[in-house]
């Protein structure tokens, strides 16, 4: 380390002497880094926001009973079988052994919540109005870890006791009901049942707000004719981007149909990854032009300093030392440029968050800043490699004679 001291001193002296060049390339690097950090933060913020909104109202993984299929009589080898089959109508069925499955899933550390649900169709009747809805029978404590219902309540209480239900704001409006009103639910199974509206929620997704009716698991089971059964197990995972692989492994283990949010939102995921790709392209190309900027400034500097390099060599500097002097200059361009760039991007983000459209908040992750500064510094070193090598390989005799 003590050895590098001299290279530092020379590199800094050179940078200070070439003040104008140093200043301009530092600004150049700063602009590049500011663009990279701002665009990355913007896209990160945007995507986090979109994902958060999407996942705020749905489970990361859903486990469902696989569809019932016709079982064909096996035929001997070599026999061609023509089949004329009607696909089976899918009746509501419970997941077998769901208690054991839930108990087993509770043990898995990569899952943060497990919520068995019974869900089925029903009609809501109130006076002349009829609306088709989805009954969602839940255990409140478990389900709230999947969808934080308390955050979405707009009126009434978050309570699903006997004969109590929660309905969406859109449904309430369609039916003209308030908290405390009674509605009739008909599942086509037994005689219809009258329940009280305990609370009204608004998930922010019109489709869900018009169709979801939350009620107690037991009550839903009896209304849907699935005593003791559940039709869905909702899961939440710690790292949302691992949902697909976890879903696959759980699907294999339980023999259930296992759908991750990544699969069910594949359109969204495609859009997000296309967006990430274009962001990464911007980052790479801005990075490349920053690198070329540093390389060209240093190339000019090597030519300008040819004689001084020769003097240093004659004074006892090794090729390695000359090499390091120029690599350090590249590193310093990257370091200082990126520090200014990060500061500038902070300002941009602040302006966006304070005066922007306010659609979402851009967080600037500390890791992004560390990554930007270290990548810029490394880029500086790499960009300096070619000019530095040329400086190191100058013939000292020629270099000293150079004017």
């Amino acid at each position, binding site marked *: 380390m003590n050895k590098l001291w001299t290279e530092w001193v020379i590199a800094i002296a050179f940078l200070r002497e070439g003040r104008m060049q140093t200043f301009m390339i530092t600004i150049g690097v700063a602009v590049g880094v500011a663009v990279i950090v701002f665009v990355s933060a913007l896209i990160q913020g945007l995507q986090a926001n979109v994902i958060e909104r999407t996942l705020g109202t749905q489970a990361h993984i859903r486990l469902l009973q696989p569809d019932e299929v016709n079982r064909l009589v096996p035929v001997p080898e070599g026999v061609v079988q023509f089949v004329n089959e009607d696909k089976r109508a899918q009746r509501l069925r419970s997941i077998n052994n769901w208690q054991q499955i839930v108990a087993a899933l509770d043990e898995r550390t990569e899952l943060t919540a497990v919520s068995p649900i019974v869900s089925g169709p029903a009609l809501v009747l109130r006076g002349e109005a009829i609306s088709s809805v989805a009954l969602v029978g839940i255990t409140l404590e478990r389900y709230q870890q999947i969808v934080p219902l308390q955050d979405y309540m707009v009126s009434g209480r978050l309570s699903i006791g006997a004969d109590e239900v929660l309905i969406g704001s859109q449904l309430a409006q369609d039916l003209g009901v308030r908290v405390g009103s009674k509605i009739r639910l008909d599942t086509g199974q037994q005689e219809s049942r009258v329940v009280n509206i305990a609370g009204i929620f608004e998930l922010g997704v019109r489709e869900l707000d018009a169709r979801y009716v939350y009620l107690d698991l037991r009550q839903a089971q009896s209304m849907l004719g699935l005593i003791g059964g559940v039709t869905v197990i909702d899961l939440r995972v710690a790292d949302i981007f691992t949902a697909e692989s976890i879903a696959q492994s759980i699907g294999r283990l339980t023999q259930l149909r296992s759908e991750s949010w990544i699969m069910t939102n594949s359109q969204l995921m495609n859009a997000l990854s296309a967006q990430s790709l274009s962001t990464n392209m911007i980052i790479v190309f801005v990075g490349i032009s920053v690198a070329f900027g540093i390389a060209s400034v240093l190339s000019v500097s090597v030519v300008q300093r040819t004689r001084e390099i020769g003097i240093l060599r004659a004074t006892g500097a090794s*090729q390695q030392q000359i090499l390091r002097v120029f690599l350090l200059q590249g590193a310093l361009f990257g370091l200082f440029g990126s520090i200014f760039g990060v500061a500038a991007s902070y300002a941009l983000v602040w302006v966006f968050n304070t005066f922007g459209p306010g659609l979402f908040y851009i967080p600037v992750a500390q890791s992004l800043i560390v990554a930007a500064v270290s990548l810029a510094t490394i880029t500086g070193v790499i960009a300096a490699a070619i000019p530095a090598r040329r400086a190191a390989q100058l013939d000292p005799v020629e270099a000293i004679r150079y004017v």
Partner: protein
Amino acid sequence: MSNEIMRLKALKKSYNIGMPNEVEVLHGINLTLSVDDFTALVGPSGSGKSTLLNIMGLLDQPTSGELYLHGQATSAMDDLERTQLRGRALGFVFQFHHLIQAFSALDNVLMPLMLHQGKPDNEARDRARALLAAVGLEKLSDRRPNQLSGGQQQRVAIARALATNPALLLADEPTGNLDSKSAEEVFALFRKIQSEHDCAVLLVTHDPRLSAQCDRTINLVDGRIVDAL
């Protein structure tokens, strides 16, 4: 024999090797320099003095022949070994007082030490100040080269060449760019150095008055030594 610092044996140097304009500049130089030599290297322009000095300073390599420094053959050394040997045993002064503009006079003198040992300790700083004092510039140690006169810059360069306490100081027309008064002063400084620092001096000069004051004169004509004394 133990007095020997440097010995050149059948040393030849060609430029543009393998090309149509290949030219042999030094045609087999044999030469020995001893500890207390104060030598002038004289000869017409283009006779190969600078070429010879660069080779002796390990800045350049001979095409054939051998150069022994402290009895050690140098032709097989790689760049790093030669750099280290140069830094340790040799001091160089050029015709155009070549200083690094970005550094003060003191830092220029410290440069060989910094390149060799890293951050200079107090001992190194004291030594550099003493050397600047020895060349009469103790008051100007913080000045940049462009704030010094030509003669002053050349004296800084001499102090720098002495920083590593070299056994041999090589100077290529150190007074060629100075007025005659500064030239006399610089020459006197070389004399002083040779006696006070136990450092052999080989200097190239065109000035017959200066070469006459040297203990020994080597005459180089067309790449050959003529009547070396």
